[in-house]
């Protein structure tokens, strides 16, 4: 029995069972099925680790059937489990399991309970499709599938129009990216006559492809990545996506789906490694995203919005890493980020749950005492993301910074700034939520309660992971060898990625800077929000206002794209279609009628006139045909 079938099949099965007869089953069973399906996939992936880790034939392949056969080009439904995909699989299913577990009680009251779990399982299935596919088509299937699921889950509470809008926004912005991906695939087809990774990558590695072509393809693929991974310019959907239930935000919009773009790039490493121009673009786009999102994160008051922007910013970090060619590092950060960001979201969820769906941090505070577990884990998450030494985030972020430092000093400076901002807004969030005194007048402090065990358990697990996650790829200066992840991925990369040689002194300086950043950020935040105990104002002005309103990007898009499109639509329909074209097409009838009316003048019933006309006609006939002809 091919493990891939099980890995893919179990979530699908869970989706089908829950989707078809979930409304008949009791909730606990539904939850159990959903969780078990994902857990099963996780276990199977673990079991196959040993096979994959063998140096030779380290991939498991599965060819199901031919999807399309266009004369030479044959598109197969085929999967492969190799070092990269199993890594992703473990992240997805692992965190997925925890979040399923968490959701059982988080969604307890919701009448759409079974629907929720069905969607979650379906999402897991699509995500696995994305990472397990052995050709671009399969990846595209997963790619759009996860988009679909995120649409369904963002708009989960369908009665609310705004949620529906957010869901549509997410799907459509993803579609824009998908178009890029699709066109990239077309280019690949026209260039290599196949979509299979193996074929395409070997041909690229062979190096007989024009550079411009590679750049074009990689750029198009990157457009797809920006859509899915919420980079400039297609990032605005992610903050709105927080409309969905919090576990969804944790799973889809923090841990897994949004990292698909990074997965794509790592998967096509050979392609990107050979197109430097693209790398530069990626670098700067990622950098811009990182800084911009971090800035906006400073001024958000919705607990989930802050985390959302932090996610966007962290994704920016990853793309910066990709831009510098440090693919392992990017994936490493994906992993650690999955840990602590999921942790943070779930913690936030726990807070929201404990405070009965209050999300505004200005109405929180002092929750430390009421929900100790949540508080502790959340603190760990915060430390991890803001790079507290020896926590997972510290290592991954440090590697990124190092890579950028080697690559481009300006970029490095900006990124450091962004890291600083990260620390600040994270601790702002932390302090405002858990410290100070309680500020909510609608919901009594007494009623605030800690979440049940099956919500806190995932928190604890993730907390542990966030602490030790760094071990996955320890830097050379500790182990005097390349990190585990680096070696793990090495056989995958057809073009060995640059190991930035760097003398230890510089390295220690960089580490020092990193630590310094953390401390500064922490102190600033503490100074403002603990010592001064500032409460963010309802509306801030000047720069603050700019940040609070997210640089007015949404408004800008609405003015520049949405509105004109709507106007064009009306104009085309009412004016062009309704008047101009109509006049040109159907105007003939009034014209004919007009001529017909002229005939009334002739056919006026007067005998002499008739006779006269006839005589004239006769004369004409005779004249023209006898004299002139």
């Amino acid at each position, binding site marked *: 029995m091919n493990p891939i079938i099980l890995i893919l099949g179990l979530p699908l099965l869970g989706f089908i069972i829950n989707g078809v007869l979930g409304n008949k089953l009791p909730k606990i069973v539904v939850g159990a099925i959903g969780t078990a399906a994902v857990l099963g996939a996780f276990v199977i992936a673990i079991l196959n680790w040993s096979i994959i880790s063998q140096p030779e034939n380290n991939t498991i392949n599965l060819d199901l059937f031919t999807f399309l056969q266009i004369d030479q080009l044959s598109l197969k439904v085929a999967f492969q489990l190799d070092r990269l995909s199993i890594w992703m699989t473990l992240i997805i299913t692992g965190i997925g399991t925890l979040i399923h577990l968490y959701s059982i009680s988080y969604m307890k009251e919701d009448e759409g309970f079974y629907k929720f779990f069905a969607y979650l399982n379906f999402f897991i299935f699509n995500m696995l499709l994305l990472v397990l596919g052995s050709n671009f088509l399969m990846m595209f299937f997963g790619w759009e599938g996860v988009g679909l699921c995120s649409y369904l889950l963002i708009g989960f509470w369908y009665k609310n129009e705004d949620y529906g809008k957010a869901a549509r926004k997410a799907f459509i912005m993803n579609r824009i990216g998908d178009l890029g991906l699709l066109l990239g695939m077309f280019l690949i087809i026209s260039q290599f006559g196949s979509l299979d990774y193996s074929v395409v990558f070997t041909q690229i590695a062979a190096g007989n492809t024009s550079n411009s072509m590679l750049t074009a393809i990689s750029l198009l693929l990157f457009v797809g990545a920006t859509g899915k991974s919420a980079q400039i310019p297609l990032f605005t959907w992610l903050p709105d996506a927080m409309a969905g239930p919090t576990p969804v935000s944790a799973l889809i919009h923090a841990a897994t789906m949004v990292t698909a773009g990074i997965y794509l790039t790592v998967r096509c490493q050979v392609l990107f490694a050979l197109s430097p121009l693209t790398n530069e673009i990626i670098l700067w786009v990622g950098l811009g995203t990182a800084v911009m999102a971090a800035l906006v994160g400073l001024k958000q008051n919705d607990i989930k919005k802050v985390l959302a922007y932090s996610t966007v910013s962290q994704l920016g970090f990853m793309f910066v890493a990709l831009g510098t060619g440090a693919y392992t590092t990017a994936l490493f950060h994906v992993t650690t980020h999955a840990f602590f960001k999921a942790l943070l979201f779930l913690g936030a969820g726990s807070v929201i749950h404990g405070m009965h769906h209050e999300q505004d941090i200005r109405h929180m505070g002092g929750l430390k005492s009421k929900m100790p577990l949540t508080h502790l884990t959340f603190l760990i998450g915060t430390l991890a993301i803001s790079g507290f030494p020896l926590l997972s985030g510290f290592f991954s972020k440090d590697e990124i910074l190092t890579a950028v430092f080697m690559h481009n000093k300006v970029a490095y400076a900006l990124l450091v700034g962004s890291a600083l901002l990260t620390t600040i807004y994270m601790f702002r969030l932390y302090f405002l939520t858990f410290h100070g005194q309680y500020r909510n007048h609608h919901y009594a402090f007494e009623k605030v309660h800690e979440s049940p065990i099956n919500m806190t358990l995932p928190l604890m697990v993730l907390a542990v992971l966030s602490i030790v996650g760094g071990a996955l790829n320890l830097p050379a200066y500790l182990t005097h060898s390349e990190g585990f992840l680096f070696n793990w991925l090495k056989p995958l990369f057809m073009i060995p990625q640059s190991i930035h040689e760097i003398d230890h002194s510089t390295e220690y300086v960089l580490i020092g800077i990193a630590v310094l950043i953390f401390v500064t950020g922490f102190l600033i935040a503490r100074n403002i929000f603990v010592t001064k105990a500032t409460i963010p104002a309802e509306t801030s002005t000047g720069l603050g206002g700019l940040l609070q309103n997210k640089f007015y990007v949404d408004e800008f898009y609405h003015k520049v794209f949405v509105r004109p499109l709507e106007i064009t639509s009306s104009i085309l329909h009412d004016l062009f279609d309704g008047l101009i074209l109509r006049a040109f097409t159907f105007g003939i009838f009034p014209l004919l009628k007009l001529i017909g009316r002229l005939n009334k003048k002739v056919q006026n*019933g007067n*005998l002499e006139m008739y006779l006269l006309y006839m*005589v004239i006609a006769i004369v004409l006939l005779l004249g023209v045909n006898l004299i002139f002809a």
Partner: protein
Amino acid sequence: MLNVFHNLEISHYIYLSTVLFSIGLFGVLFRRNAIVLLMCIELMLNSVNLLLAAFTEYMGDANANGQMFVFFIMVVAAAEAAVGLAILVMVYRNTRKTDVSFLDQLKD
């Protein structure tokens, strides 16, 4: 006296009958009274008769097709005149008019 007619050429006949025909034609065009119209039409027919007769003579048609035709035309013309006058009477009975310019009830 007679030889005057003998050295007439065919062309004269053609001219004559054409003139007659045109007189009839213009009569039809410019007179209003139905009876006059009828007479004008008769004139046209007779001009044709003259022409046919002349042609027959001119071509020396052995079995005188043309002149035979003339007789047919006369008969038909008579029948037509009869019908026409009948219609005229009918119209007159209803409208008290013989003026065709009043016949303009039927039109688009």
